[in-house]
C-alpha cells in the first residue's frame, strides 16, 4: 500500500510537468477573435500599470506585474496576454534562427519555462524572454502587415523609422482606441521607461512621422498562415493594403495624418475640437518635459555636475522631444491661421488660442491661459504656456542634460555647459 501511495504521489507530483507549454491553446484565431482582441485592448483591462505600478500610489500589482517592455515589446506582449487569457495560440518569428534551427518561431508551446509555476508567472517569464530578441525591426519585418487606412482598430499599431542625423530613429505606438473624431489614444513604452521600470504611457497623440517605407506605418499583427482558416483569409486580404505608402509620398505630413483621421472618424471634428486637442497635447507634452528635465538635473546633481557619458546623455537629453514640441506649435499655428473666421470655434477656445498665439493678447486672456496650463519647472514659479511657446519658437530650449535648469528652459542663455554633446 505504501508503494501504491508513493506511486500516486509521484503521479500527481509529475502531473504539472505534463503541461510543458506556457499555456495550452484550445481556440484558434479568426475574425471574431480579432474583434474581441480589439475590444480587449480598448477596455480598462489594458491600462498603464498592467506591467508596473512604479511611482503610482494605491496601485495594486496585477498578474502581469514584472513584465519589462519597450515600445515594440508592448505590441507583442499584449497579444501574448490576450492569447493566454483566451486559450489562443501565440506565434512570432525567431529572428536569431538559422535555417537549421529547431525553433523557427516563438510560441506558447516553448518548454523552457517549465520550472516556473504554470499561470501568469510563466507568462511573465515568456514575455520577458521574447523581449530579448524581438523589437521594432522584427515586428515590422516579420510579424505584422500594413493595414488599409480605413480598417485601423484598437490593438493595431503605428510604427515609424526616420533618419535622425547619421542614424535612424524607430518607434511603435499601440492604438488603444479611436474616438469618434478619429483621434488615436495610444498606449506605449519607450526604452527609457523600460529601463526605469515605469508604467506605460497612455495619451491621445497627434502622429508626426508618415511612413516612408513599406515596412512601417499603420500595421496589424500577422498571424501565421496555419492559424488563419477559411473565410478569415478573405478578411485578412481585405484589411491589408499599401495605400498609406503612396499617400505619404504625395501628401504633406499634416495632410497625411488629417486624411487618416478623417477616414477613421465617425463624426466630423470642428476646428474648435482640433484646436482644443492640439492645445491639450501641447500642454501635456510640456508638463512631461518638466518631469524629464527634472530627472536629468537630479542625476546631474547626484554626480556633482560631472559631464555625462553617452548613456546618461542619451537618457536625459531631449533633442527629439524638443523638435516635436516645435512641430506641435507650428501645427497649432497652422490650424489657427486656417480657422480664422470659423464660426464653430467656441469663445473659450478662441480666447485661449488668441492668448497663446496672438501678437498682442489681452491681459485677461493671459490669466485664463495661465489657469488653463500652468507650467512650473522650478519651485515657487509658474510660467505661462505663451512664454514657453515663445522660447520653443525661438529655439531657446536646451536639450543638453548638463545645462542648468534655466538654460534648459531657455530662461537664460547663461549656465550652458562645456560638456560634450553626443548628437
Amino acid at each position, binding site marked *: 500500500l505504501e508503494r501504491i501511495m508513493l506511486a500516486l504521489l*509521484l503521479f500527481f507530483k509529475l502531473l504539472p510537468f505534463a503541461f510543458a507549454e506556457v499555456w495550452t491553446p*484550445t481556440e484558434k484565431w479568426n475574425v471574431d477573435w480579432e474583434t474581441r482582441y480589439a475590444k480587449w485592448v480598448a477596455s480598462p483591462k489594458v491600462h498603464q500599470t498592467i506591467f508596473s505600478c512604479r511611482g503610482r500610489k494605491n496601485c495594486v500589482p496585477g498578474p502581469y506585474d514584472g513584465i519589462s517592455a519597450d*515600445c515594440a515589446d508592448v505590441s507583442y506582449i499584449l497579444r501574448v496576454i490576450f492569447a493566454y487569457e483566451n486559450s489562443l495560440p501565440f506565434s512570432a518569428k525567431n*529572428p536569431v534562427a*538559422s535555417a537549421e534551427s529547431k525553433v523557427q518561431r516563438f510560441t506558447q508551446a516553448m518548454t523552457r519555462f517549465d520550472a516556473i509555476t504554470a499561470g501568469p508567472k510563466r507568462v511573465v517569464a515568456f514575455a520577458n524572454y521574447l523581449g530579448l530578441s524581438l*523589437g521594432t525591426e*522584427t515586428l515590422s519585418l516579420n510579424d505584422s502587415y500594413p493595414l488599409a487606412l480605413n480598417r485601423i482598430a484598437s490593438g493595431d499599431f503605428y510604427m515609424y523609422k526616420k533618419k535622425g542625423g547619421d542614424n535612424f530613429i524607430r*518607434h511603435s505606438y499601440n492604438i488603444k482606441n479611436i474616438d469618434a473624431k478619429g483621434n488615436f489614444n495610444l498606449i506605449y513604452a519607450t526604452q527609457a521607461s523600460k529601463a526605469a521600470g515605469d508604467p506605460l504611457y497612455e495619451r491621445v497623440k497627434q502622429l508626426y512621422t508618415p511612413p516612408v517605407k513599406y515596412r512601417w506605418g499603420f500595421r496589424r499583427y500577422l498571424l501565421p*498562415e496555419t492559424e488563419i482558416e477559411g473565410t478569415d483569409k478573405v478578411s485578412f486580404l481585405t484589411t491589408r493594403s499599401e495605400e498609406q505608402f503612396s499617400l505619404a509620398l504625395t501628401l504633406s505630413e499634416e495632410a497625411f495624418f488629417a486624411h487618416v483621421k478623417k477616414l477613421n472618424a465617425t463624426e466630423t471634428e470642428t476646428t474648435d475640437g482640433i484646436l482644443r486637442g492640439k492645445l491639450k497635447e501641447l500642454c501635456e507634452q510640456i508638463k512631461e518635459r518638466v518631469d524629464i528635465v527634472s530627472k536629468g538635473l537630479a542625476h546631474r546633481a547626484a554626480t556633482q555636475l560631472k559631464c555625462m557619458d553617452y548613456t546618461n546623455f*542619451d537618457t536625459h537629453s531631449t533633442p527629439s522631444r524638443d523638435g516635436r514640441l516645435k512641430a506641435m506649435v507650428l501645427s497649432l499655428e497652422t490650424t489657427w491661421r486656417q480657422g480664422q473666421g470659423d464660426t464653430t470655434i467656441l469663445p473659450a477656445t478662441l480666447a485661449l488660442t488668441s492668448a497663446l498665439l496672438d501678437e498682442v493678447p489681452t491681459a485677461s486672456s493671459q490669466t485664463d491661459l495661465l489657469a488653463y496650463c500652468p507650467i512650473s519647472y522650478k519651485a515657487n514659479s509658474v510660467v505661462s504656456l505663451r512664454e514657453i511657446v515663445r522660447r520653443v519658437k525661438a529655439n531657446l530650449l536646451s536639450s543638453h542634460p548638463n545645462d542648468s535648469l534655466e538654460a534648459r528652459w531657455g530662461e537664460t542663455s547663461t549656465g550652458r555647459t562645456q560638456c560634450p554633446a553626443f548628437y
Partner: protein
Amino acid sequence: MPRFLLNRFVLVGLAVSLAAGLFYIFSTEDVPTPVASTVPVTAPTTAPVLPEGPSPVQKVASLAAALETLKCKDLSPLLDSIDGLKLQDLRQKLAPLGPSTEQTHWENTFYTVDGIAFVWHLVPTESAEGSERWELKHFREDADGPTLIEGRPFLDKRAAMAYRKKIVSNEATMEQKLSWNYGDTLTVTFTAADTVRELRVTSPLFQFDCAKSGCTCEDYN
C-alpha cells in the same frame, strides 16, 4: 471527456508518470528512482508545419517586400555564379534591384563549437531619446530556443562589427554564415575571407539559389 485531457502532452505525461510509478512499485531495489530522471521531457513542437513553398497568404503578406517586382530574369544575369564574389560586391550588385538593399535590419552570424550552435545577433535598438544604438547579442541555440549569453551595446554599427570580427576570428575552425533580411529572406554563406559561397533568396515570387556550381532560379508565378 474534457478537451484538455485529450492534449497529447497530458497523455504523454500521464503515460510516463504511470510507467514511472509502476516501475517504482515493482522494482526490487528499495531505492527511489530519482524524480529528475523520470520527468517527461516533451520534445518542443514549436515550429508550425508550413506547407512547402509560399502559400497565397504568405505571398500577400510579403508583397510589400522590396523583391516583389523581381523575377528570375532580373537576378540571373547578375549572378551567373558567385565564385569569388565578395560580400561587398554582392551588396553592390543587389543595390539597384530594390529599395531595401541598404536596409540591413539585423545580422546573424552563426557558428558551431563542439556541436553546439551559437549566434551573434547584431541589431539596431532605440535609445531613450530615440537615437540609434546597436546591440550585439550572443545566443546559444538550445533545443528549446535561443538562450541569451550576453548583450553588448555599441554606439554605432561599425564598432559592433569590429568587436564581432575580433571575437569571431578567434574561432579558427568556425564556418561563418551571415544572414540578413533582404525583402523577405536572403541568406548568404561566406568563407572567412568574406567570399560568398552560397546565396539563397526567397521572395514571394521566386526562389533563387546560388552556389559555386552556379545559380538556379525558379519563378513561382
